[in-house]
């Protein structure tokens, strides 16, 4: 990135968006930084200007984007179902934000580069499909979240064609961390974790810090194309549950409906893309990331799971009587 670039970050209120903004604030090459989201940032930002805006308020979004006239747009406005929003709002907001932010960015005269956050759910796990798809595999989503991501990528492609600038699409493995709102993270932290009795396939995750580092690296590289981002290694649901000392509960067919209801009551609903992950797996070939954006995740998938279970010990401090 050359000196003093104007950067627009949509989805700045998410854990990932806030992390990216924090990292970009330390970059001398970044000038003005503006963020949008329905939720406020989860960290204290010193340089960024934040606009709290409803993703369905297209007029307001377009106005903000045109006023900023960004040179780099980092579009993180993707709502995973049952993470920060219910499935209906998540799909609606993701679609509206893509049209508003990317559509407006396409008409900005200064636009030079787009970075778009997508996800590996876009590949789909149809029977007989690739276990570990690379970027050349045609997306064939089987879940509502996967289809939302595909629609969002299609909007991004149209934006790129209109603006005629490089665009880096980052397909992230499920982003998990101790502080990340994630349906998979919540599910794995239940005392008893439902798992498939017939298949316990492997899946990969990515740590939130690694995902943020990949996004920042992509913003500086101007790679034009799709990049899978996933931590090396894999876990299965049973292995992950045991790593956290949880009890894996093997389930068959209709029992999953009961499990989804029960986990939903306990605050950990299982959206279809997580269900797909538990039954069909979710690894990707992320070997291209090193060449394309110059960074690879520093934590392995088992380390990401371990970090998920490591809660800080609560130390109860007694008021000292010696204090005057």
């Amino acid at each position, binding site marked *: 990135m050359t000196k003093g670039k104007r950067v627009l970050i949509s989805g700045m209120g998410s854990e990932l968006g806030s992390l990216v903004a924090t990292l970009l604030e330390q970059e001398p090459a970044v000038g003005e930084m503006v963020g949008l989201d329905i939720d406020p940032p989860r960290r204290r930002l010193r340089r960024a200007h934040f606009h709290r805006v409803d993703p369905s308020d297209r007029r307001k979004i377009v106005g903000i984007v045109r006023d900023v006239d960004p040179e780099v747009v980092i579009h993180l406005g993707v709502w995973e179902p049952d993470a920060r929003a219910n499935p209906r709002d998540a799909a609606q907001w993701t679609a509206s934000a893509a049209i508003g932010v990317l559509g407006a960015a396409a008409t900005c005269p200064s636009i030079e580069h787009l970075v778009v956050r997508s996800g590996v759910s876009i590949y789909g796990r149809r029977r007989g499909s*690739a*276990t570990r798809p*690379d970027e050349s595999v045609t997306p064939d989503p089987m879940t509502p979240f996967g289809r939302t991501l595909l629609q969002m990528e299609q909007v991004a492609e149209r934006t790129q064609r209109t603006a005629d600038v490089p665009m880096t699409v980052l397909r992230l493995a499920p982003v998990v961390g101790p502080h990340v709102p994630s349906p998979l993270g919540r599910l794995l932290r239940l005392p008893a974790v439902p798992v*498939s009795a017939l298949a316990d396939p492997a899946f990969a995750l990515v740590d939130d810090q690694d995902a943020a580092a990949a996004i920042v690296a992509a913003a500086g590289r101007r790679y034009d194309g799709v990049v899978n981002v996933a931590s090396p290694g894999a876990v299965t649901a049973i292995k992950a549950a045991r790593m956290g000392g949880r009890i894996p509960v093997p389930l068959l067919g209709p029992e999953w409906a009961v499990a989804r209801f029960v986990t939903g009551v306990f605050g950990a609903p299982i959206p279809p893309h997580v269900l797909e992950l538990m039954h069909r797996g979710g690894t990707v070939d992320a070997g291209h990331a090193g060449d394309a954006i110059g960074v690879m995740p520093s934590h392995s998938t088992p380390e990401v799971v371990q970090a998920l279970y490591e809660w800080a010990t609560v130390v109860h401090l007694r008021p000292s009587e010696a204090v005057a």
Partner: protein
Amino acid sequence: MNRLASAGAALHRQFAGTNSVDEWGMDADTVGLTRFFASLRWHTDVVGAAHVPPRGPALLIANRRSFDTTPVLVATTLGGACGRPVRFAGVPDLAPLGPFLRRSGGVIARPDEIAGLLRAGEVAAVWCTSPLLDPRRVGPAPLPYLEVAVELHVPVVPVAVNAAPLGRRARVETAPPIDTSKARGPLATTELAELVRRTIQRLTDEVNPLARLPFL
């Protein structure tokens, strides 16, 4: 006693969640278990296991009859003999058999799946399937997988398997690896396929021309 101790350690790893699972779903403990059961099922002579490269990717191509268990035989015996897992193509994508075979090192038969394994430096095995009515004849080498090997410049290792479906004795013989670093284009791939098929046919014929009858 050693076997009991390692089985206990494997059980402990599974219970504690410290077992290792790779991105294709292979579990080292399940590979060990499958090798143990394969040693009960087959008494195998392995010849030329040193031809499998000790490091880096390699594509093994072996003969097999339709619907037989050659993939497990090759993966367990060659994997045990060369000291590294051999990933075998042809796992059905159907639970519960598919997931169990994936745990043992299997993958579904897709060129992009094999390409991913080879890019990751693994040894993968694919098959020349013999015609159902003429099991003594080695079928054509699978061109899509050879194209992957040529594109990635991965050595190709022909493997001849002599095993009757109902018998206990088996022989797995490996020929020296074929260098693909200078191969280019569809003609080279086709010639490579023919060379592989002829090599396997010669090795199987040399051992026992009658060995491919179902009851021997």
